[in-house]
């Protein structure tokens, strides 16, 4: 069964890249992407049955309204959503960001890849978490 993945990303190019690189993968089922943390929460709260929740949440860090870290904080303090693995992926990942995100409960912190191989490798790593 394909893993349901939801991307939370404000940059439309980056949302398109997800579709471009992952729509062919049999093991991944991309849910329609949302553009910030607030939209994600709204989306999740509208899912009636737990069995329809995503298996994996991929969060961009730098987003308007509610960024990756803030979203992470909300998710990990919510009884219903806290067990869904959430990862942060960002253009710039320094040690501080990695430590902060891990402390907030991120399952993984990744740098945004720049080519197909990088994207496939990143998704392989993500799927290990589910």
């Amino acid at each position: 069964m394909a893993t349901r993945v939801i991307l939370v990303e404000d940059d439309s190019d980056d949302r398109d890249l997800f579709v471009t690189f992952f729509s062919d993968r049999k093991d991944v089922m991309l849910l329609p992407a949302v553009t910030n943390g607030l939209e994600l929460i709204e989306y999740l709260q509208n899912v009636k049955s737990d069995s329809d929740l995503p298996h994996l949440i991929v969060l961009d860090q730098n987003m308007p309204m509610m960024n990756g870290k803030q979203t992470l904080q909300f998710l990990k303090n919510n009884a219903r959503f806290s067990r869904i693995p959430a990862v942060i992926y960002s253009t710039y990942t320094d040690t501080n960001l990695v430590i902060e995100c891990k402390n907030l409960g991120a399952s993984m912190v990744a740098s945004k890849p720049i080519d197909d191989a990088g994207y496939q490798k990143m998704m392989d790593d993500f799927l290990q978490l589910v």
Partner: protein
Amino acid sequence: MITRSYEELLAEVEMLRMKLDEANDTLDAIRNGQVDAFVVNSDNGHSVYTLKSADHAYRVFIEQMAEGAVSLNPEGLIIYSNSQFARMLQRPLSSILGRMFSDFVLTGSGDDFGTLIANGWNDNVKAEVELLSGDDVIPAQLSLNVVHLEDEKTLSVIVTDLTSRKEVERQLKMKNEKLEELNNALINSNHDLQQFASVASHDLQEPVRKIQVFSKFLKDRSFGDLSDAAQQYVEKIIASSNRMKVLITDILTYSRLSAPESALELVDMTELFREILEDFDLRISEKGAEVRLNELCVVEGHKGQLRQVFHNLVSNALKFTASSRTPTLTIEKKDVDAKELGLSLDNDANYCRISVRDNGIGFDERFSSSIFSLFEKLNPKSTYEGSGIGLAIAKKIIDKHHGVIIAKSVLTQGSEFSVILPFKQPRAE
């Protein structure tokens, strides 16, 4: 016409005789040194007469002092004043003698003057007051001491004009404030600069990554459709964006060096080099380089930063290799000889010198100090990739560790970088 009677004249003679006796008594007392000064009441107030007697030498001494000197009788009347005190008050001496000292004190200045004088009669007292000097007011310090003269007591007052001291204090305070202001401005601008570098680098990374992604896209998916020239352009875009990425990362590293850091620790440099060389395993085998690592030393420092320094030096050594020979890289401990290196160190024995030597292309020694400047590059970028920041980072870190980094080279023969680090870092107070 003379109308006075004989009796009247007799009474007058008697009175004059009494005055004469009184004057003779006074003269005796003066001769015996019992009297310092006398106050004569008149219609214009008190007049005081002082003496040039046995203590003449002290009076001369007191006259020459830069401080005001005043004696008060128990009522607070000025029975003696040197001329310096008169100058302080910008008044003739004659208008000071016989007046109450309190007349010249600005009321409400300092402690209550009455209490002060009362205390002065019991104990030595120092206090600051403001004195009326002509139309001005001057700050002054009073030192009160009781002087016993046989059964007479006087209060001697030394008056120090604080105007110039206050002025110096004021200027000092002003300069201090200005210095503090400048310092704050500097801290702010430093902070701003760091913020700017950090934000700029972060935000620059986004578009650069996009350029990398989409130019690669173009190459991977549509390369065949492009003309030879267009293919070359795409390659150039990819190469440039990769270089840009390195540049931004390095600027970010450089700007972060100003941020507060981790604690100091003892760093085993041999161990550190083993780790660094491991990172370069692939490059070393690609280049077929021979690396020799000798036993080094243990120094106090920030491990992550020191790793960065030697990572950069090793990276350079493996980058600027001469294609005509097998690259060699030697890392060893050397004697610190400050004189030979042209340095001034407190004590050679407190330092460890680590030498990183290669047989690469080297550089012109004329540039041996400018290579540590930001963005300084000695080699054409087409041949050797790099941001020109690596050595600037190394120098900044070594500076912060109170050490020195020196580059020596013979063009086409090889380079040697010497890093001289103190074993112990000075403690901040």
